[in-house]
């Protein structure tokens, strides 16, 4: 109110009445018709209202003149342009109609041209007259203003800078009254502004000449700004007064800033362009709005005689606009004029939308930029690895848990994650927890720039994690192969460890030129290993769990209670390590070293790296007596942590021979002495060793070269082979099936149809067809499942002997009975169906259903036993015969193990609160007592070997990084002898080729395989009653060259053999003083015995018949009555007896 008053009162008071005093009489006279006085009073009163403008005697406001020039320029030009266009077209039309009218139509445009001269568009109008110099002028103007050359760029930048200068001048002038009469000669800002505007005018002319579409140019934002800012300035010089007016429109030029910066090549990334765009639009709208409010509030409404104005400074208006636009609206300042209020109404509509849209976006751009940008700074003395691929919370947490495990001795490695999307909050939190060792960068592995950011050329290795749960495994593999190619292309020396889902995709990796497995490049094929584990479990139950625990890092947990978990967890904490063997061992044979390590050092040496020639390095698992250790032999140990393994490298016979506590073994000073003492001996041993190898070759050769002309093995000699058969030959009917397979076979139930992804069944069959078995030992494999699916896989299977197919649903009990499932060694349930649905608990439905179906089957010949079993006193001797006791148990386990989806499922949920996971494990084994949130490796099915998840293979990544021997070892154990040579052959052609039995290939048969020996039945029976594991180990090693590395024990750990429990759990590398119980089974690595093949058939027949009899009569077989036995152990027993 006060400000209103201040403007009103002076507008009237000062001049009105005193002046009135002078002419009041006149007015009165006017009122008096008789006098007929002059009407001049009206005008003089008008003056009284305009006291603000002191420059002119008339005191009149001239704002409308300024506004009019702008409007006339703009609209006049627009109308002229439109008219011009219309006339040109009319001329064209008329031209075509008749040539007569041509002369007239030419005149019309030229007339228009004269009219528009004042607007600086002369050139345009003369197109008709001189089009040739017109075009050259246009071209010249175009060159002048385009930003491609330096002149144009300078001009553009100059115009922008001057626009900003003009805006600054406006800001300076805005503190003056809206309309004032400065002296042009003395007013500095006016002069500067004039210079600027002359420049703008010139630039406007240039642009106009260069414009192709004049109409478009005329309506361009920059042109409009020019129309409303340039003419008033010239007018102000002419009238010698200035009107602040629409000069605020210069703020709109700020919108150009992003364009200018792009011209100058400063803005390049899309984010920065977007940010500058948003900011400039926001800022210019803001300043322009403030300028308008400033204008109308300071001048007032014309219809109120400008009396409702208020004096607001420009910055107050800026504040008012922001307060209004943000909908806060304090109300300390507000628009008082009607014009201002009308403007506000419309401005809020637009400004609010803009504010709501721009501000969050600008904030997001500013805040999110650089969060995971930048480049990796190499810490001196620290290695780093780059991890990429499927970066999710689960995969990363599994990986980190394993990689940064405390049992690893010295993890002096920084982990750099590179992923193209930002991590979610949970993942971010995980990175924060490990911030000392983990860095995340956002970027694509395919982008060399991003690779340079993470300094991949200096990285120790690059690890690629695959998405195990991908619904399209081939696509996932393809993307990972592309990643490998990208990295290898960037720098071929980087070591890459990648996960692959499908075995057949591995060949593509091998075909990359710079892929070099000798340099440490490794592909961990999940399907191959998974099926390999399953296959090995067919040979020795529980082996999958045992091996899985060996390569995953877990700390030991102490449990006081005498329950199975105590022993299980002790085993779980064991891992594989490698170290060089001390020179004290040089010259000793492997079994001796192994025993020494076990007894003295508490370490289990299971393999050595053997340099047979200068370059050839072979991994030898339990190589047997004939191998003598060399200097600097790398040993592979199973131990609790890396420190323990150090003992093997510092062990000195002289100093540590009498130490009983292995913890006291430290590095001793007498090393040199022993070394020199042994050096002479070493040479002799080496020679002896060679002899022994030759000898063993000689002995093995004659035995197995019976029919040299028949291809019995594949070209590498690693697998049994037969000529490829048609699938029809392998298909059986139900009756045929029941005749073909009687017992001791493997039933593989396949859920899958034509559309399912290929699982790669060859990886399941190959380990079962390894050449270190004799032909008669091979278990018959019978597939039950859709023929359509099996046809897809058959090509890879057709070269393996003893494989049959029973078409039909694996859920059909008739089918299962037809394959004598109650007599099989193992039942495997695999599901190839990839469920894309979100409900993870449904993914394993087929596997679970299948396994429950089989468990609940009843067989007539065992019905009595089952009843007895339910009462809890079934003799364990029935193990073989009663389906419930052994086969079903095994089967149940296997079904968990197998279901690719089940595994998937378990893996998915593992690290998270695992409701679904647990659900799925529990479905398999309905009477266990696991808590819902136990980790997979602690669950009972897993401990029993009844559950195997692909997620445990994650640990293999880090294990491989630290030691690529471990992968080789695992693969050798699991795949039954897959070698790089074999892989390259498979890369060449997707089938195995047959080969003749040559001495070279036959030698390759001489390798270990895993078996399970029942304690009660073998020669170790006397140790069963209270014996110690260590004694068993030594005895087995000494006598039979068997390397024991685990125990498969009944869950309730009965002291007697009389127990109803049938479930077993795995104890990995038990300590020396573990007490054995008679029901234990022992995992061991057994040497290949070439002699066995000759009489193996009769043996196996006899043993089989004895089993059959035992099944029927529940009578005792072998040395121990009513004690558990299984097929392989008894086989072994016979075998041992033969020895």
């Amino acid at each position, binding site marked *: 109110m006060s400000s209103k*008053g201040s403007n009103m*009162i002076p507008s009237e008071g000062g*001049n009105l009445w*005193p002046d009135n005093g002078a002419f009041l009489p006149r*007015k009165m006279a006017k*009122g008096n018709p008789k006098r007929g006085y002059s009407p001049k009073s009206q005008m003089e009163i008008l003056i009284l209202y305009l006291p603000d403008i002191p420059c002119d005697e008339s005191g009149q406001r001239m704002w409308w003149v300024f506004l009019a020039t702008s409007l006339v320029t703009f609209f006049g030009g627009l*109308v002229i342009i439109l008219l011009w266009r219309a006339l040109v077209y009319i001329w064209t039309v008329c031209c075509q109609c008749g040539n007569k009218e041509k002369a007239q139509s030419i005149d019309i445009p030229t007339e228009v041209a004269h009219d528009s001269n004042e607007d600086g568009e002369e050139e345009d109008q003369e197109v008709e007259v001189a089009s040739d110099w017109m075009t050259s002028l246009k071209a010249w103007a175009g060159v002048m203003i385009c930003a491609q050359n330096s002149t144009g760029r300078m001009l553009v930048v100059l115009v922008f800078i001057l626009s900003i200068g003009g805006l600054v001048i406006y800001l300076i002038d805005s503190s003056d009254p809206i309309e004032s009469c400065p002296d042009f000669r003395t007013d500095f800002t006016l002069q500067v502004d004039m210079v600027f505007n002359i420049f703008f005018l010139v630039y406007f002319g240039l642009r106009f000449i260069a414009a192709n*579409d004049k*109409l478009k140019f005329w309506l361009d934002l920059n042109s409009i700004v020019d129309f409303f800012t340039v003419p008033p300035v010239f007018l102000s010089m002419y009238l010698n007064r200035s009107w602040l007016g629409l000069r605020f429109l210069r703020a709109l030029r700020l919108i150009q800033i992003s364009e200018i910066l792009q011209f100058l090549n400063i803005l390049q990334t899309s984010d920065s362009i977007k940010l500058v765009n948003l900011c400039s639009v926001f800022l210019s709208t803001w300043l322009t709005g403030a300028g308008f409010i400033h204008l109308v509030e300071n001048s007032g409404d014309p*219809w109120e005689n400008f009396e409702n104005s208020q004096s607001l400074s420009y910055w107050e208006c800026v504040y008012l606009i922001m307060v209004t636009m943000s909908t806060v609206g304090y109300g300390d300042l507000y628009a008082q004029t009607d014009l201002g209020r009308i403007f506000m109404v419309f401005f809020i509509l637009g400004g609010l939308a803009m504010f709501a849209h721009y501000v969050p976006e600008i904030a997001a751009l500013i805040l999110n930029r650089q969060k995971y940008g930048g480049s990796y700074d190499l810490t001196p003395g620290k290695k780093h690895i780059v991890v990429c691929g499927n970066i999710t919370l689960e995969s990363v947490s599994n990986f980190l848990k394993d990689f940064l495990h405390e049992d690893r001795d010295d993890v002096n490695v920084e982990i750099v994650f590179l992923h193209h999307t930002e991590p979610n909050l949970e993942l971010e939190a995980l990175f924060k927890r490990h911030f000392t060792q983990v860095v995340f960068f956002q970027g694509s592995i395919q982008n060399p720039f991003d690779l340079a950011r993470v300094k991949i050329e200096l990285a120790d290795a690059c690890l690629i994690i695959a998405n195990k749960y991908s619904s399209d495994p081939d696509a996932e593999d393809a993307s990972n192969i592309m990643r490998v190619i990208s990295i290898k292309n960037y720098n071929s020396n980087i070591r890459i460890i990648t996960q692959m889902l499908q075995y057949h995709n591995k060949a593509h990796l091998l075909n990359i030129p710079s892929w070099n497995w000798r340099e440490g490049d490794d592909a961990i094929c999940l399907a191959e290993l998974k099926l390999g584990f399953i296959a090995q479990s067919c040979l020795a139950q529980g082996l999958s769990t045992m091996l899985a625990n060996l390569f995953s890092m877990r700390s030991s947990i102490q449990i006081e209670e005498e329950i199975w978990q105590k022993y299980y967890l002790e085993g779980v904490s064991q891992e594989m390590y490698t170290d060089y063997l001390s020179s004290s061992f040089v010259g000793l044979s492997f079994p001796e070293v192994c025993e020494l390590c076990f007894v003295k050092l508490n370490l289990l040496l299971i393999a050595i790296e053997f340099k047979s020639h200068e370059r050839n390095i072979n991994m030898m698992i339990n190589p047997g007596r004939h191998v003598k250790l060399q200097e600097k032999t790398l040993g592979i140990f199973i131990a609790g942590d890396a420190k323990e393994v150090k003992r093997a490298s510092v062990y000195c016979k002289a100093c540590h021979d009498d130490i009983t506590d292995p913890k006291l073994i430290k590095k001793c000073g007498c090393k040199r002495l022993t070394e020199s003492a042994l050096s002479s001996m070493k040479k002799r041993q080496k020679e002896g060793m060679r002899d022994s190898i030759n000898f063993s070759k000689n002995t093995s050769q004659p035995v197995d070269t019976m029919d040299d002309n028949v291809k019995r093995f594949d070209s590498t000699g690693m697998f049994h082979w037969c000529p490829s058969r048609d699938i029809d030959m392998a298909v059986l009917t139900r009756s045929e099936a029941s005749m073909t397979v009687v017992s001791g076979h493997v039933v593989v139930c396949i859920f899958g149809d034509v559309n399912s992804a290929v699982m790669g069944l060859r990886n399941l069959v190959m380990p079962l067809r390894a050449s270190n078995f004799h032909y008669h030992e091979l278990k018959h494999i019978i597939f039950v499942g859709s023929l359509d699916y099996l046809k897809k896989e058959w090509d890879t299977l057709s070269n393996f002997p003893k494989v049959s197919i029973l078409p039909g649903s694996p859920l059909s009990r008739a089918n299962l009975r037809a394959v004598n499932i109650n007599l099989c060694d193992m039942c495997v349930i695999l599901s190839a169906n990839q469920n894309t649905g979100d409900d993870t608990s449904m993914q394993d439905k087929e596997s679970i259903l299948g396994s429950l179906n089989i468990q609940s089957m009843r067989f007539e010949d065992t019905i009595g036993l089952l009843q007895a079993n339910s009462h809890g006193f079934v003799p364990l001797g029935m193990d073989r015969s009663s389906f419930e006791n052994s086969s079903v148990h095994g089967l149940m386990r296997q079904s968990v193990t197998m279901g690719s989806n089940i595994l998937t499922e378990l893996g998915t949920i593992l690290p998270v609160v695992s409701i679904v996971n647990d659900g799925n494990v529990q479905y398999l084994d309905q009477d266990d007592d696991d808590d819902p949130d136990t980790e997979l490796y602690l669950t009972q099915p897993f401990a029993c070997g009844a559950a195997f998840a692909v997620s445990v293979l994650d640990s293999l990544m880090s294990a491989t990084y630290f030691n690529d021997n471990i992968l080789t070892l695992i693969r050798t154990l699991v795949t039954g002898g897959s070698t790089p040579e074999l892989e390259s052959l498979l890369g060449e052609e997707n089938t195995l080729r047959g080969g003749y039995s040559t001495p070279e290939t036959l030698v390759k048969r001489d390798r270990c395989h895993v078996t399970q020996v029942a304690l009660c039945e073998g020669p170790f029976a006397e140790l069963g009653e209270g014996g110690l594991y260590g004694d068993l180990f030594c005895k087995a090693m000494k006598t039979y060259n068997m390397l024991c590395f685990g125990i498969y024990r009944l869950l309730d750990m009965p002291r007697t053999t009389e127990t109803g429990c049938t479930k077993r759990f795995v104890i990995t590398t038990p300590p020396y003083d573990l007490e054995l119980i008679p029901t234990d089974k022992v995992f061991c690595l057994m040497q290949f015995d070439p002699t066995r093949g000759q009489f193996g058939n009769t043996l196996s027949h006899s043993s089989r018949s004895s089993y059959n009899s035992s099944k029927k009569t529940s009578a005792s077989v072998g040395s121990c009555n009513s004690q558990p036995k299984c097929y392989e152990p008894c086989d072994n027993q016979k075998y041992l007896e033969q020895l």
Partner: protein
Amino acid sequence: MAKTRVSYEYSEAEDKSIRLGLFLIVCGIVSLFILCFCWLSPTLQSMQSKPANCTVISVRRLEERFECVFTCGADCKGTSLYPCLQIFVNNSESNSIALLHYDEQQLVLNPKCSYVPKCERDNQKMREDVIRLQHYWSEEGSNQTFTCFFNPQRRPDDVLWQRSHDASVLLHCVLWPMVSLLVGTLIVLLTVCARSLAVRAEAIQKRKFS
């Protein structure tokens, strides 16, 4: 002869100019309303007051002082006090005594006084102003008859020295919206016209060359 195909779509610039024309038309209509409400109706109301003959009856100065706000340059304001002058006139229309004001605005600003001087920092100056005027009216202006404006409905107790608005307002109120409307229509028409002509010209040319 193959049917010649011509694009009927407006280019970006034409689209813009059509929109500009439409905007001007809308602006014209809206401003017509706004001006009518903001400007015309108060004018018409003040036009209702009829001219009458007034004669000064008495002039007096109240001792009560009123505040006004003066400015002393940018961001410089203050209040000062001025004495209140009251001029009572007899108006011929209603034949009653009424208080004289300069115009509607002064009446609204201070209904009690006839005169609000230009606000000065110096109270004395304003006082002199008022006294001079009082002197004039009491000496010379008394008994003279002059034309004043009287609105019996709205302001039965006041008369005005002059009306603030007159018929020219009506012109402004109608002219500018109409101009805007016309220019907008012109632009739209010209653009549409040019386009359709262009289409036709193109068609002719195609026919010629085909």
